[in-house]
């Protein structure tokens, strides 16, 4: 090794240049970000708040969950034997309409997040409620659709196609339902001023989850309904 200046960040085996040990180069009053764990979003190593990073990680893993369910459906989507199959069941205009409703709920979610960032509590609550209602409308559509399919002879155990269809869309529906519960709880907690931590960020986190559920629906709608069997 030459004695040229060695990058202090270099960490090869034994060539590390050691900075003087007790230099107090940290600015006075440095906040290590631990003092209010989970509550101090602005002092983390990456600059992202812990909550936001965690939500992204969670959504990343959710991709694999839906990936597995979608793969299962794609494998079994034509395996209904003599039982009723997708071609006889799908009502594309109806499902398109409920899909549109769900996508619009993403718009109202964005409006809610911007209202929260403007510290406009009233509009935040309003748009959160609208988002929950649109989500509820989508879910009602799904329940209606399931009922129709069931009456037409598609029970959960009718065929491999039926099981994998209900499992995939059912998991998505549960995600929407959890989202609605979170949205309504958020409205209540905002109204009672019982929300812990940064309001705007909490709204944004629920928003991230909500958008994810919407995006997954776009994938499901395309793969399940739009691609001909």
């Amino acid at each position: 090794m030459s004695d040229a200046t060695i990058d202090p960040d270099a960490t090869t085996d034994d060539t590390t240049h050691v900075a003087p040990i007790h230099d107090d180069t940290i600015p006075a009053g440095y906040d290590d970000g631990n003092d209010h764990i989970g509550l101090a979003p602005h002092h983390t190593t990456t600059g992202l708040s812990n909550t936001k990073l965690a939500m992204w990680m969670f959504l990343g893993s959710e991709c694999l969950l839906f990936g597995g369910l979608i793969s299962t459906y794609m494998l079994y989507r034509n395996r209904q034997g003599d039982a009723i199959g997708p071609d006889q069941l799908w009502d594309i205009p109806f499902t398109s309409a409920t899909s549109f409703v769900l996508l619009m709920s993403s718009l109202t979610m964005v409006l809610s997040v911007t209202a929260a960032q403007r510290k406009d509590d009233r509009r935040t609550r309003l748009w959160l409620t609208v988002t929950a209602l649109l989500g509820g409308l989508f879910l009602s559509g799904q329940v209606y659709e399931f009922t129709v399919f069931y009456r037409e002879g598609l029970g959960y155990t009718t065929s491999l196609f039926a099981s994998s269809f209900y499992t995939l869309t059912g998991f998505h529906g549960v995600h929407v339902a959890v989202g609605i519960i979170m949205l309504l709880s958020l409205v209540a907690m905002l109204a009672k001023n019982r929300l812990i931590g940064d309001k705007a960020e909490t709204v944004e986190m629920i928003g991230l989850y909500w958008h994810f559920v919407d995006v997954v629906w776009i994938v499901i709608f395309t793969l399940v309904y739009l691609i001909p069997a």
Partner: protein
Amino acid sequence: MAIIERPEASPATTPEYVTPSASMGFLRRPVETTGWKSWAFTVDHKKIGIMYGVVAMLFFFVGGLEAVLIRAQLAQADGTILSADKYNQMFTMHATTMIFLFVMPMAAAFANYMIPLQIGARDVAFPRLNALSLWTFVFGGIFLNTSWILGGAADGGWFMYAPNSSVPFSPTNGVDFWVLGLLITGIASQVGAINLIVTVLNMRAPGMSLMRMPIFTWMAFVVQMLLLFAIPVITVALFLLMFQRNFGATFFSVEEGADPLLWQHLFWIFGHPEVYIIVLPAFGIISEVLPTFARKPLFGYPFVVFSGAAIGFVGFGVWAHHMFAAGLGPISVAVFSVATMAIAVPTGVKIINWTLTLWGGKLWFTTAMLFAIGLIVQFTIGGLSGVTHAVAPSDTQQTDTYYIVAHFHYVIFGGAVLGLFSGIYYWWPKIFGKMLNESWGRANFWFMIIGMNLTFGPMHIIGLQGQPRRMYVWTENRAGEGFFNLGFWNLVSSVGTVILAIGALLFLVNVWVSRKNPPAPADPWDARSLEWITTSPPKEHNFDRTPTVHALDEFFHRKYEDVGEDGQHDYKKVATGEEVIAEEEAHADAHIHLPSPSYWPIVLALSMPILAYGVIYSTLLIVAGAAIAILALFGWALEPPTAPDDDFDPPSPDGDEPSKELVANV
């Protein structure tokens, strides 16, 4: 849990007793600092780490007992100790317990305890989620094992291949317990993974760049990434199996036109990363231990880091090598065969790095070091037999024989378990403030290493001779002659198991004889990384002052100064560990908030086995479990993670100890 106020420049660390007001949601928060409540409701990553370790060790002995019974059954021809049915349950639960309830939680114990200390943080990013991970794992493990007394445990092997796992082939509730138990422990892993990833990325002390992170933290980080993306896949598989068994779906029923290979794909997309989830923490541990006891820096730190990350990536692309005999077709087999051989490269890089770390070092053969060197040797043997499986034609000969059993025990026991024991001996003085006895430790090591080679070594022979896995008996008239006689080698293997079991028990003996050891020195091993820049055991808030990091091996560089000239390095000790710690204490932070303990993680975790029993037995229990879960979730959401300042008693002016009793009727 405490708010620690102290005058400037005074390193007093006694937490003040506190009186909670009703400000924490709808229950006053727990404040106990001693007794069982201080453990059950704690959010301190160190206590959680210790509890993880203790429970994992308990399950290690449960799984070990199952192994002893298996080997007792196979010690002689036509064994009669276990029935075929009990034998199936035994090997299924042995693998499940060892993998999901010992190795993974033990690694989680170290990750929980060490990561915040190694990166200079006061706790993990989400302390309550950390407690949730622990209790979910504990209750999931207990739930899984209650199947023994509720009609029999799962009997389909830890991979639970379809259609064998369906009700007609496995009519007891064992598989249901297995499915639900793994879903519960999966939640623990998933929550823990998110938590620790955020901790590593976001909670590092000033100066702690990624390439200055201690290598154990790096490897644990890679493991959490693997968990994050592998657990959801097995979750899907487990849900499909649950719906098949409990709700009449037919995802894996061939007669309904299903493809049972779907299970194998889903399982091994999880299952192969799982192999690295098991072994990488041990790699991280010995990458700390070897440099410390060779008195040299880790050779090629960036190579160890990036080969670990490479193993993580490639680990997701080799799953089908578990399915070479399933008829995937030549192209799939060729691709996965080559990918599997490729993953041997980063693993080999690590072995080279460890060997060269030892090369020319002043070796200090402590017990921790012995276990670490044991890992290098034993894991290499397992790695070499692993390469023989990567060659698909050879693998078709070995599939479902004891040769495979030999291979994965050399990798899992020789790799993961030896590494974890190395970590236990290395960090014991850090965690408990006293040393483990070295003589008993050496006995512990030698019994284990001899025992494991006697147990698993002969399995290569009996496997290549054709003894199948999972057969509950072997017969004398098929045992062969001379050197390759199955009877002889099965007996050797069973005797080895006894020696191995004695080795494991010697660890408990060591813990017992070491219980009254004097306090350990602050830096007993002349260690290198950040977790040693604080007292042993660490204070509740870990560091009096958040350390500033200037280099990889920060602690070493604070103790040693480079006096070499002309580019040569010559390190001279300029400070003892105690002095370095004293220097930090002298600059203690004045005002430290720690997260507050909480009831909700353990309550939420408790709801999960109730829900799971409900799925098996009664809808009523599902309703009860769901009600508890909802209560806990809202309690959690309404409770601030850190109690606000006005939630603490003001310090008593006359120096009297303030009451720690809850204020009644506020």
